[in-house]
């Protein structure tokens, strides 16, 4: 008896499962998710093609699409310099982070030294603070060293922010490479540094690509620290300049959207061309 009803219930559950797994349901969910993510970006793009005055009209699509907002943002306000600053700061930050992070990750994956695990946990621990809690000391330090309104000041912040992440990612990559490879290279005639350069580094190249791209993207979009030390176009980055369209009495939405689009384009390009590496970077494996 109860076996019979149990079987009926099992079949009902199976039917429900089949319905949920049908292509219509799956695609509906995916569509909603994509809409949720893409809609603000589309709105931003549409807004950037309007004039600042036309933003409050009741239409989503610009009546007379114009690049005026881009002109205002980039040239009238001179924020093209912010774009240049962003490129310089992000590139420099990425180079420094990778130069320090790759060897550090390798060391943590291969060598035992006193308190190695403690040191590693400590490196990760620094990233557990909410960064905003460090803004005041950071500002004080930058003032002391005369690094306010300098690109170097922002690079230092980026290295602090992203180095732990890269050390962690690279360590995970190096762990997937069998020690046999290092040892084969040593026996074959390499010094430790040669083994690293000729054998391990080429093998871990996808990981390095992933780390480089992630660091660049994160540095590019960093706002808080750049905002803290930048008051002029010597060091201001594009995310900071975007924020400056918020005035005391009004927000220049169209220009802000234009600046935001300019800020987004490089990231979008990087993601488009290097998505494979970003995925391996975030999942931290070299398989496949």
């Amino acid at each position, binding site marked *: 008896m109860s076996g019979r009803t149990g079987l009926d219930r099992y079949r009902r559950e199976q039917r429900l499962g089949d319905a949920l797994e049908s292509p219509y349901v799956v695609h509906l969910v995916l569509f909603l998710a994509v809409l949720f993510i893409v809609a603000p970006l589309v709105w931003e793009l549409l807004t950037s093609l309007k004039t600042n005055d036309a933003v409050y009209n009741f239409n989503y699509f610009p009546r007379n699409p114009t690049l005026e907002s881009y002109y205002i943002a980039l040239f009238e306000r001179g924020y093209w310099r912010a774009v240049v600053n962003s490129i310089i700061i992000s590139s420099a930050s990425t180079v420094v982070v990778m130069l320090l992070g790759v060897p550090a990750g390798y060391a943590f994956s291969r060598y035992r030294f006193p308190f190695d695990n403690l040191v590693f946990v400590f490196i990760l621990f620094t990233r557990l603070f909410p960064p905003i809690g460090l803004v005041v000391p950071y500002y004080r330090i930058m003032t002391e060293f005369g690094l306010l309104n300098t690109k170097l000041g922002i690079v230092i912040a980026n290295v602090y922010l992203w180095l732990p992440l890269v050390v962690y990612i690279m360590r995970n990559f190096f762990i997937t490479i069998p020690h046999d490879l290092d040892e084969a290279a040593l026996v074959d005639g390499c010094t430790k540094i040669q083994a690293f350069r000729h054998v391990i580094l*080429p093998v871990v190249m996808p990981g390095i690509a992933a780390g480089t791209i992630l660091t660049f993207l994160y540095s590019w979009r960093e706002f808080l620290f750049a905002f803290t030390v930048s008051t002029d176009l010597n060091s201001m980055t594009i995310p900071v300049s975007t924020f400056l369209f918020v005035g005391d009495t009004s927000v220049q939405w169209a220009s802000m959207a234009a600046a935001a689009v300019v800020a987004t384009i490089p990231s979008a390009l990087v993601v488009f061309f290097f998505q494979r590496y970003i995925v391996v970077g975030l999942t931290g494996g070299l398989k496949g």
Partner: protein
Amino acid sequence: MSDSVQGDDSRLDERTGDQTREVSLELDGLTKVFQDDEGDVVAVDDVSMDIYDGEFVVLVGPSGCGKTTTLRMIAGLEDPTDGRIVLGGRDVAGLEPRERDVAMVFQNYALYPHKTVAENLEFPLQIRHYPSDERKSQVESVSELLGISDLLDRRPGDLSGGQQQRVALGRAIIRDPEVFLFDEPLSNLDAKLRIEMRTELNKLHDRVGKTSVYVTHDQEEAMTLSDRVAVMNDGELQQIAPPQTVYDRPANLFVASFIGEPPMNFFDVELSPVQSDAGLRIVSDVFDLLLPEAMARKLDSWDGSTDNLVFGVRPEDVTDTTVADETFPPETTFDAYVAVVEPIGADKDLTLAPDADAPEEREFTVRVDADTEAREGDVITLAVDMAKTHVFDDETGTNLTL
């Protein structure tokens, strides 16, 4: 550039075991202690051996016996806690692997995945800045020797296990080192390929003739490949001798139990003098056998206690008397109960017990001719080839009848 030492051409046939050969590799009191959370772990304990030029020595033992650690110390991948390693007349203590003139084949092949087969083979020469035409000709001759000429442009990921194994061998051979080190190189291959590669390794060694140290846990590999087998257990060297000697004359209980398949049977026994002459009888609850005179004399000359003696008989040194043509003297025979019969083709393995009710731990195995008519439940009479048996002291494990 090359620090490779040319081999001495006056080398004598390595199969003869001639003592006038030069020592290629000498281990002297080699010890390795690892620091563990629970304290010190002695992985290798005072291991000494001389390995002669051109000799193939296999280190064999159960996992954790220290054989791989020993190999890694020879390679320079592990620093000895104590002891000396003399390689080609040079104390290599503290030298980096690259300064030692060794080549190594790893268990997982350790091929460089981003390099082609040719680049893998060439790498040891390239890193030493050999001129490119010499590199090329070396790659050619080595790949021909190993039959991988048509794989040179492939990457390791596209090769089968056996092919990868050959490339790994090639990368070791190409530099002509003082000694080859092998760390369980066949253990990742399937059974059939493993036997094929074993034969090929044998041929290769005959042709290249380099001093080789080979680590395995597989006793069959150890027996078939080696000029001498070094049996290790618990970090200690138990015996080093030619494979047949290790089988025929095991130095102690461990070697006797480790080498041979199915393993040697052991019985707790007592000695009992024979009135009529100087002979000795060996008595247990299963049998009462007469030891050959030579063995009896050796036991007599031992001055230790005879309270804890263990008698060892190999399964293949026992005959089923009912199907044998010859007659056996009664002092070499005993009766046993047949618990299990397992045909294995040319022979049959019988699991025997003193009687039908005996517990499992008192069972033992014999390997008899396939003609045997023994059925499960029978009681049969077996004859022991007494000259091939051994008596051990259970306390120290020493073979008292060597």
